[in-house]
């Protein structure tokens, strides 16, 4: 097949007409679009303090995790504890699941409370 035959086949195509209600339907969609409330902007002002708090918290945790072995070493070597305190600490160390569970529950409660507070602020 030659180029001019391809040209003729593809350029000689008759146009189709849009259906009679097409323009009206487009304008209705445009009017709906214009009347729709503007999109809710992303809450950057709320996000920035939360990010800062989160970053600081993460930093504190990272620092604590990094320095904990050194502290416990120092404590083990240099601090003499009364036997009852040592016993109490040993009991705590033997039950880490209770501590973790309590911590996670406290964190969950705090985030639920914070969420409810933020939702209350938005609905006002």
């Amino acid at each position: 097949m030659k180029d001019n035959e391809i040209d003729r086949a593809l350029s000689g195509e008759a146009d189709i007409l849009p259906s009679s209600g097409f323009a009206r339907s487009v304008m209705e969609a445009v009017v709906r679009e214009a009347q729709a409330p503007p999109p809710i902007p992303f809450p950057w002002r709320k996000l920035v303090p939360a990010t800062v708090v989160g970053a600081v918290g993460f930093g504190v945790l990272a620092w604590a995790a990094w320095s904990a072995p050194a502290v416990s070493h120092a404590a083990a070597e240099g601090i003499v504890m009364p036997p009852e305190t040592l016993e109490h600490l040993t009991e705590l160390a033997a039950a880490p699941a209770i501590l973790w569970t309590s911590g996670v529950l406290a964190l969950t409660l705090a985030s639920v409370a914070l969420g409810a507070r933020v939702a209350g602020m938005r609905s006002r």
Partner: protein
Amino acid sequence: MSAAEDRADVLRVLGGDLSAFEGIVRRWEGPLVNLGYRFCRDRGRAEEMAQEAFLRAYRALGSWRQDSTFSTWLFALATNLYRSELRRLPLRTVPLEAAGEIASAGSLLAQIAGEDRDRAVRNAVLRLPAKYRETVILYYFHGMDIAASAASLGTAEGTVKARLSRARDLLRKKLPAALATTALEEA
């Protein structure tokens, strides 16, 4: 089509007169629906895509910088939309390669002529790889204007020429196969 009318209507819409957008729709509904139809060969889908193109044009009207004509901007926007719509929901066609074995070159082509042959060529265009298909569609839609096709595709004129040449090669080689798949689809 008047560039001055387009500019005036755009300014009125941007100034808050929504009814002026109807002038734009009336002037460009035919071209946008026809361009969509060439992409998908389905009138209903072409109108849906054209409506979405008008909506996007309305939303983005403020971004038309007037360094090109409104029609160039509108066609580029519509072309982008139609391409992504067809990527999202592709046409149901048999790839040209799938029919390569069953068609003997020239045998089917020799049997048909005129309008049937033209229709077969247009169907074969839909089976080209996307970048060639889009280039061919826009080139013939714009009355074989390389510069307008390049502007709609957002690519260089040299790229359009190279893709057209490759597309013609593919069409010449694969048209008999396309005829066979068309016959299979219609059977």
